[in-house]
């Protein structure tokens, strides 16, 4: 059992070890806190030229990562929070994501971007966003959202090995847990979700940290006679559509739990997928459990009302399993 951040750090350490083309950069990656511990002292072991701090120039640095990738390297670019990615959008969306297609495959951009959602602690509107829905919209990007330390390590190693731009969005709450993580390097494939709990009555898709909440909700629901299947998609793009549709075939009911905003977010996509290709199996409305369409408030009383979790998942499931139309 190791802390979550150790799992990420182990992946980076091994990637740096295995491939001289890999390097790690980002604000504070070489500082005493080492990006929540994920990059701690890697600069000592692998050298300051391979693990380095950057200026606060998110726009340029994203392009610099792109250029370095075109020049044959494999940059892993760390951001403290996804809130700062808005400054990098042009180079991420207009460049990294489009380069392979735009040049007919002549050049590719194997860059990994990492950022960690900063929920809680009164972080407020500009330091707590979970904007992965935006990036899920972008063709050419791969989007990874691990839910366990095992996946965080294996997905990081896959992301670094991938020949395309991969955005990894972590969730700070996942860092609270210790996890069983094999020491040797391994890969968790991009585009493959996982069933975290088998069940017959309803499918709960939990994105990132919400997979853990969904699991807990399922345990609670079991006591109420509802047998929920919990799916952790692990990567949102490509999305493991078949895993979700297969589950719905069995259960006929879906709740999507997402740490992002509701409108036009990841939950909307998964709901729309089921409403089309899974419609024949559906016995009840498709429910989304997500943050309301609001900037995050600072105060904890409002935070409490803002963030959904186990209770909201339980009640959404109950609504469609007991009270809902055609229920």
């Amino acid at each position, binding site marked *: 059992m190791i802390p979550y951040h150790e799992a990420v750090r182990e992946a980076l350490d091994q990637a740096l070890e295995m491939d001289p083309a890999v390097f790690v950069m980002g*604000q504070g990656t070489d500082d005493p806190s080492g990006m929540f511990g994920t990059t701690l002292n890697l600069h000592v072991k692998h050298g300051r030229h391979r693990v380095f701090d950057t200026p606060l120039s998110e726009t340029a640095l994203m392009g610099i990562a792109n250029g370095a990738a075109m020049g044959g390297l494999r940059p892993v670019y760390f951001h403290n929070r996804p809130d700062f990615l808005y400054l990098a959008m042009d180079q991420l969306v207009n460049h990294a994501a489009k380069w392979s297609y735009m040049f007919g495959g002549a050049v590719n951009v194997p860059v990994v971007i990492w950022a960690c959602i900063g929920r809680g602690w009164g*972080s407020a509107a500009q330091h707590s966003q979970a904007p992965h829905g935006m990036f899920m919209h972008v063709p050419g990007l791969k989007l990874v959202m691990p839910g366990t330390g095992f996946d965080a390590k294996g997905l990081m190693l896959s992301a670094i090995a991938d020949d395309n731009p991969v955005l990894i969005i972590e969730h700070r709450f996942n860092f609270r847990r210790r996890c069983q993580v094999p020491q040797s390097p391994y890969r968790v494939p991009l585009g493959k979700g996982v069933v975290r709990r088998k069940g017959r009555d309803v499918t709960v898709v939990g994105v990132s940290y919400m997979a853990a909440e969904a699991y807990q909700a399922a345990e609670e629901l079991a006591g109420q006679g509802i047998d929920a299947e919990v799916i952790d998609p692990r990567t949102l793009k490509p999305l493991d559509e078949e895993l979700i549709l297969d589950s719905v075939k069995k259960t006929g009911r879906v709740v999507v739990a997402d740490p992002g905003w509701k409108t036009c977010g990841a939950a909307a996509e998964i709901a729309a997928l089921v409403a089309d290709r899974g419609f024949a199996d559906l016995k009840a409305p498709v429910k989304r459990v997500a943050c309301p369409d609001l900037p995050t408030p600072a105060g904890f*009383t409002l935070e409490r009302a803002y963030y959904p979790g186990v209770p909201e998942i339980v009640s959404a499931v109950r609504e469609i399993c007991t009270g809902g139309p055609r229920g």
Partner: protein
Amino acid sequence: MAPEMALKQEQLVDLYYQMLRIRKVQLHIESLYHLDEMKTPVHLCIGQEAVAVGVCASLRRHDYVSSNHRGHGHYLAKGGDLKAMIAELYCKETGCSKGRGGSMHLVDTSVGLMGSSSIVGGGIPIATGLGLAIQMKNQDLVSVVFLGDGAADEGVLYESVNFAMLKGLPVVYVHENNRFSVCSHVSARHSGEIVFHSLPEDRLFSRKIDGNSVTDVYEASREAVERARSGMGPSFLECDTYRIRGHAGSGDSPHGYREEGEMCHWQARCPVATFRDRLVTQGLFTEHDMLDMEQRIQEEIEQAFEFARNGAYPREEDLHRYLYHG
């Protein structure tokens, strides 16, 4: 003529008062932060008071100030309401941002504080836009923005300064160079002296100032502000100072990333203590005056914390309020 000669005695004492008040507010926050009643990340400006106070002393009530995550000093120096600030740190409905913003998002429109961004550099173009509004509305106002050495890495500064020069906007860019962005020294991020000092003065008035000398800051700022008011365009003031504490909170260790001796060097240059000594030496200020001032401030602070603690928390049913205006 030494700069302080231009300032009247009461003004000098007031500069000291302002700095001391900010310092004591910070220390009070720091001393209580571990209680976890202020559930919002605080960024203290201990050791940097002279920048906020010197600049704001050159401004009028309705002049604009754009601040950042480390904004307590700017807010107080500009005349922001102390009670509302502390209540905001407690995330109360009585806070200046009604508990929605927290420590990094202070506002007091009655004194030209139109909100502060915690995105580093976020305030720079906003202040420039306030300058544009001043110019278009032909107002007798100035727009000032405080930006850190981290913010100076951002391209938006280059774009904003260019626009301000292009239009001759009444904007003063105050580069509060405290050497660090979190644990990253400015030398790890910027390749040398910032380029804006090399522009000709008719395009951009620029000065490098001892940011721990409140009178130096005041004098340079006064000149920049006067230029702005008289249509001579933008200025760039770099105030050399130092972040004596950790980046955020009260437990954040200030160590592990500094040059040896640096801390001692700067502690000896404390802007509050050195200025007090000067005032005492010059006979403008007695031990008794000081005790009196300290006590007044202490009372005000305690009242502010009292006010903050007594305030109600925002109600859950108001979660959706303020998303849209009107």
